[in-house]
């Protein structure tokens, strides 16, 4: 359990940040999620932790949305963000990158890497909620289709559809900004 939480806590924080865009709220969400996992499922087999934790995390994010909807109209607008086709909102500076997959080894590459990261995170935030969840679970958390479907409470076909749409949306958005991965 300790090893699992340690390996997942930073990614979970980033996921929460993508969803709620508030550091304090994201930290609270991760803390609540870890606590719920430990209290309710601490005696489960380790291989069930990723699916259970993602399910708890997504539910905790939704609970946060519900609470803030009641509290503030301003947050309601943010929580209801479901852009249909997120084409260029505010184009960041166009980047010409030759090989961004390698770890940045020079200051210039580090700057490019940071700019690419900013653009990617920005586009991931803009994804529809379900697409973002499916994409991050499949490709960042390294969960298989069945695990992702179980965590999201939907069919495996839906997961594949969400992932495919998210991937194409990200590719199109990044390409429009001149970013090549």
């Amino acid at each position, binding site marked *: 359990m300790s090893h699992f939480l340690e390996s997942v806590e930073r*990614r979970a924080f*980033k996921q929460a940040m993508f969803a709620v865009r508030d550091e304090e709220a994201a930290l609270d969400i991760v*803390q609540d999620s870890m606590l719920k996992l*430990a209290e309710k499922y601490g*005696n489960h087999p380790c291989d069930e932790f990723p699916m259970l934790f993602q399910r708890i995390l997504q539910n905790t994010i939704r609970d946060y949305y519900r609470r803030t909807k009641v509290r503030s109209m301003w947050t309601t607008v943010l929580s209801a963000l479901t852009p249909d086709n997120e084409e260029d909102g505010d184009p960041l500076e166009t980047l010409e990158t030759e090989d961004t997959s390698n770890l940045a080894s020079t200051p210039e590459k580090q700057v490019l890497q940071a700019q690419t*990261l900013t653009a990617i995170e920005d586009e991931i935030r803009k994804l529809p909620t379900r697409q973002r969840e499916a*994409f991050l679970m499949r490709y960042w958390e390294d969960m298989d289709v069945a695990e992702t479907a179980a965590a999201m409470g939907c069919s495996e076909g839906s997961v594949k559809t969400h992932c495919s749409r998210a991937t194409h949306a990200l590719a199109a958005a990044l390409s429009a900004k001149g970013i090549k991965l």
Partner: protein
Amino acid sequence: MTDDRFAYRIRQTLNYGLQDIPPATCRRLEAARHQALAHQKQTVPQWSLATAGHGAMHFSFPAPLKQVLTILALLLGMWIAFYWHSHQYISELEEVDSALLSDDLPPEAFLDQDFSQWLEDSSGE
């Protein structure tokens, strides 16, 4: 570029971004982790069968089966107690019987009312 290849590049970049999380945030995440671990639900003790120096074999039973096994164990205990008690009672009777049969007096003498009356009168004198 295939979807998987593209997703892999995205993943690499996102992982790179994890290094940028401020130390204060990392410390709070670590504290949250420790808090969660302090409240971790522990595994219920299970039936275990020790093996010859090679750890233990663990068996876990579903809840309904555990209840049935508990009731069966209780019934078995009650049957053993009843059997042991009956055995003791029969043994005592056997001892009395063998004492009667090995005595000089015939057993019929103890059923004779006059003999009993004679014994009481003799002890009174």
